């Protein structure tokens, strides 16, 4: 593949970003869990107080995907806080369309993210991966990532809306 560029996402990109969010969820076998809309992505990422930041990977028109897309990769991140070490960069989603893999785009995106982390005074970059996603786990481990769940025993928990409501209702 000749070339590609990595750039900050713009409001016009939300349609491509949502498309790729759904593609990634499908790959993770959890497609039906995506309820986010383009409108929410737009308000939440490009309003006065963005809740996330996003890079996209773009190819020239001559290299467009089989369905005619030129925005072919994305990485969404935000800042979190560890009371022991301070500001962290949290990588929420990281995806390259299948037909564009193996050309170095993923590696470039990861390096750009880590450069962003260092520039913005983050001590670390965190993210989660499903344990059956062997290609991704190997990709990250080759580049020096540690698995906190295996090494330190951290387990991720979630409490959903209904149970949250119960917690706020006075007894």
């Amino acid at each position, binding site marked *: 593949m000749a070339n590609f560029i*990595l750039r900050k996402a713009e409001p016009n990109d939300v349609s491509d970003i949502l498309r790729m*969010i759904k593609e990634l969820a499908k790959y993770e076998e*959890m497609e039906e*869990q*995506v*309820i*986010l809309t383009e409108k*929410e992505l737009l308000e*939440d990422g490009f309003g006065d107080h963005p*809740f996330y930041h996003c890079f996209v990977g773009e190819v020239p028109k001559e290299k467009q995907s089989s369905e005619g897309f030129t925005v072919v990769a994305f990485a969404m991140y*935000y*800042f*979190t*806080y560890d*009371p*022991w*070490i*301070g500001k962290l960069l949290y990588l*929420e*989603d990281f995806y390259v369309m299948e037909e564009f893999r193996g050309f170095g785009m993923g590696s*470039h995106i990861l*390096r750009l993210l*880590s*450069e962003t*982390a*260092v520039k913005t005074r983050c001590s*670390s*970059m*965190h*993210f*989660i*991966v*499903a*344990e*059956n996603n062997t290609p991704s786990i190997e990709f*990250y481990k080759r*580049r*020096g*990532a*540690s*698995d*906190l*769940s*295996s090494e*330190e*025993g*951290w*387990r*991720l*928990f*979630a*409490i*959903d*809306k*209904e149970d*949250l*409501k*119960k*917690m*706020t209702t006075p007894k």
Partner: protein
Amino acid sequence: MDFKIRAAKQEDCKEISRMIIELAVFEKMQDQVKISTQELERDGFCSNPLFECQVAEVSEEQKSSQGYTVVGYVLYYYTYSTWMGLTVFMEDLYVMPEYRGKGIGKGLMSKVAQVGKEKQCTRLQLAVLDWNTRSLDFYIMKGARDMTASEGWHALRFDGEALDKLAAEAPKD
């Protein structure tokens, strides 16, 4: 026992810092605590705070054996799920041992749920160490699902040398 749950103020950072270390000692990772009161003040009470905090306070008459009246805290921030939008992540929840079993932990966590609800968060997430059975039971009773067990999610990290090395290879503008 009477206690009050309130939003932390900048002046509380000294107490919060003390309790962060107490929690790290409990988690057997005290050597990993690198930040101080000053950094907490800078990061939590600037124009774009990186976290929010609620503290549990008791009256003077109920102060701890070492004279503390701020006896618990919960530190949290907002995250974004590409599947469902804004969520709240509960990073630390801690009650000093002599004040446990009195509903303070529950009170702190309910406050986060309430704050999250006001901001229309769709979910509350947290991480727990696998040997911390007492905490695991506490959260599961409140409806928490173990995503590591049920869906195989693992937390990964790039830090220190690994992060610097990766950043040094970034494409130049």
